[in-house]
């Protein structure tokens, strides 16, 4: 059923900044959503010709293939160091990292914190899905207390494995970051808010303001072993209790 171009106007289309390649994410995974939001943001800000994505190791490892701009794949946890190298050498580029919770908040703790502390003028998009997606569902530093994972098969026990790390709060303790926020995607309102947050973060980078962190509470239907719709419910009901949403720092 073809669309009548005369009487109809396109109100939602595939972002220009995306290639045609199909995402390799599982059905219903929020990674796809955020990827799309970033692409729309780059479209809107007209940054396609100077944006660089630093892809992590995680389910989004080959993210650079989906964007119509330059990209680089960073070793596990080191995306912020890689981004630092690129941005310092060529400050004209708009550089963002896109990292999972294992990548950013476990193995990459030092690189993530010190890039923030140096106030690198980059945008860090942090997908907190409380699990190691790519490797098949092991505990992340952000996994909730009691949550099942393949490496804590009786649920995360804080006495053995510690507590969910609130990374945005840690970064907010530092002096340099200009924008630190936590968002989610479990309903239309949150999707819009996430979109605004990501846009603000990029906007700040364009204006040379400095470092931004956008933490996004996301799902992993495969490893949570839930349907995508159920994951949204869990995010709204459970996850936000451990990870309060909202802006933590907005220094501009």
């Amino acid at each position: 059923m073809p669309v009548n171009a005369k009487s109809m106007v396109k109100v939602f289309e595939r972002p220009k900044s995306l290639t045609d390649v199909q995402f390799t994410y599982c059905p219903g995974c929020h990674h796809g959503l955020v990827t799309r939001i970033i692409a729309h943001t780059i479209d809107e800000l007209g940054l396609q010709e100077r944006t660089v994505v630093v892809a992590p190791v995680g389910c989004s490892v080959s993210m650079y293939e989906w964007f119509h701009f330059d990209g680089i794949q960073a070793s596990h946890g080191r995306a912020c160091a890689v981004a630092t190298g690129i941005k310092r050498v060529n400050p004209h580029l708009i550089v963002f990292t896109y990292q999972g919770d294992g990548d950013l908040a476990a193995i990459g703790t030092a690189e993530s914190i010190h890039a923030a502390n140096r106030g690198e003028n980059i945008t860090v998009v942090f997908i907190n899905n409380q699990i190691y997606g790519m490797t098949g569902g092991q505990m992340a530093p952000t996994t909730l207390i009691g949550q099942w994972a393949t490496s804590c098969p009786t649920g995360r026990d804080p006495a053995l494995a510690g507590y969910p790390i609130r990374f945005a709060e840690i970064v907010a303790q530092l002096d340099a970051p200009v924008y630190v926020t936590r968002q989610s995607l479990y309903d239309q309102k949150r999707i819009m808010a996430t979109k605004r947050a990501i846009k603000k973060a990029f906007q700040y980078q364009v204006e040379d303001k400095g470092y931004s962190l956008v933490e996004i509470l996301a799902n992993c239907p495969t490893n949570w072993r839930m349907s995508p719709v159920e994951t949204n419910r869990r995010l709204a009901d459970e996850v936000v209790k451990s990870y309060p949403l909202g802006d933590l720092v907005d220094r501009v």
Partner: protein
Amino acid sequence: MDNTFIFAGFGGQGVILAGKLLAQAGADYGLEVTWLPSYGPEMRGGTANCTVVLSDEPIGSPVVDNPSALVAMNLPSLERFEKAVVEAGTVVVNSSLVTRRVERNDVTELTIPANDIAASLGNPRAANMVALGALVKATGIFPLDIIKRAMVRMLSDKGSGKLIEVNERALEAGYEAV
């Protein structure tokens, strides 16, 4: 003589699990077995296949140039492996997704609408079990019961007990469909 199998399909189609089940059942049946997955992406996405060898003597290579049977759950899998199957071998094709027929005529072709059968049983994801059931029947390596028992054990271990019943029915349906 070794029995060598390749299971191939999309990442989400459960071919890795189906192969594992066959190997497990083979071991239960007293055979030497190897099972060797060849992933696409780390853990998911893309295409996937695995190789199973069943033998009554110690197995050398778990890598197989020419399988005696192929289960092709989608078109790319058929295209990739069809030519490798040994003469007089068996090819199980998931006709729900593969529209063309096997081009060779020196192999036994079995077309099974695995997805449709699975959907009719209420779980479209059990298509892999349907195909496995068909393979067991076609090759006659061992009774269906052996597979069923291995499946029950594996799923209970994994804490996926609720899937046992539908998988059981899927195995049977595949077995019957041949």
